[in-house]
């Protein structure tokens, strides 16, 4: 192919590319209103109770930054990251951070939960998930799984696995508090 032909080819490709970009512009906001356990979507709603019977509904916390941590007492990385979560909760709760630690009670021994809360001195709500519905809604495959939800109720970050360091928690929490 001669140089002139190549340049015409390049220009045609770039014009076609620019046209494709314009035609395929997204004017609908593809994830708006859809609920799914993935960054960019509205966090799937749930209503759960603490061992003391106090109820929490996720959707009622809109306006706060929410950290949802799915965990179990038998899970070593879950145990390892709890002190860091508690420390971050103490540091940021006055700025609007809510932590919901959802114990996967249907995969755990419920008798272990209250001693665990005492042992780690947890002051944020620990919720009992006894049916598996939240695990299904969040398509749970690994523990711990942590969802950082912004003030609009949209999941901003997902961290699968652990343990999360205090520094990683701080970076994610400061993002959802903005």
């Amino acid at each position: 192919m001669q140089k002139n032909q190549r340049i015409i080819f390049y220009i045609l490709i770039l014009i076609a590319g620019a046209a494709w970009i314009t035609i395929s512009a997204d004017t609908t906001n593809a994830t708006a209103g859809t609920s799914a356990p993935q960054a960019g979507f509205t966090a799937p709603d749930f209503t759960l109770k603490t061992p003391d019977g106090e109820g929490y509904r996720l959707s009622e916390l809109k306006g706060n930054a929410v950290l949802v941590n799915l965990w179990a007492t038998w899970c070593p990385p879950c145990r390892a990251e709890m002190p860091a979560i508690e420390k971050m909760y103490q540091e940021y709760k006055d700025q609007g951070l809510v932590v919901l630690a959802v114990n996967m009670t249907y995969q755990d021994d419920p008798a272990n939960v209250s001693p665990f809360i005492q042992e780690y001195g947890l002051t944020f709500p620990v919720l009992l998930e006894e049916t598996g519905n939240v695990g299904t809604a969040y398509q749970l495959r690994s523990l711990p799984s942590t969802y950082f939800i912004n003030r609009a109720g949209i999941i901003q970050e997902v961290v699968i696995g652990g343990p999360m360091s205090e520094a990683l928690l701080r970076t994610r929490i400061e993002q959802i508090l903005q």
Partner: protein
Amino acid sequence: MLTLFRNLFSPPRHMILLLLATWIGLTIAEKHTERHGVGKDDLNNVTYYGLIAFVIGGRVSFVLQNLPAFIKNPPGILSINPDIFDPFGAVAAAIITIVIYGQRHGLLLWNTLDALTLYFSILSIGIGLSHLAAGTAFGMETNVIWGIDLWNATRHPTQIYETAASLLIFGWVWFQKQNPRPGILFLTYAGLTAAAQLFTQAFRGDSTLIINGLRQGQIIAWATLAIIFVLFEYRLKEE
């Protein structure tokens, strides 16, 4: 089948696919490297240092971008959690390291890039598959019969589009027995990949949007394509 695949390689196991692609890609690239005038040892060294720089650079870049958090908790820098990682910083560190290594050991840039093209093309397949496993880079909602159920909707299987495009590009690279000039193989691979991204990004449901709904990913792919055309002419003129 898709559910089985996604269960098998669900995060964080989806990274196994990237490791597999790296291993297979480097093994194959090594077998064909001498065709491009690059020795096996040089290719192994350049990729070894590049991969180390990728891992360390990704971590360092993330830490630097979030320095106040890590000053308060320095041990967090060494945390085993892979989320402490900035992919752009990782790629930049790898490129800088490869360029420095290449200059110090007299490696020719374009020949080295050609030798690595098979690796890049296999890595692209691995990236597409890891997106499929993790459910990231997902598509818009659709009614097409080949849509997949993902994130509570039927969506364009953009990860499959991406993987299929990468497979086709790999096939094209694989069958190139002659390279007219050093750099042309790599630039053609890069151009095809940018064009594929420009096309498939149109079906993505997670695009970062800029003015009037234009997709940032497509704009970057378009600009990359334009730069590749310039480099293409530069290579043809230089020889």
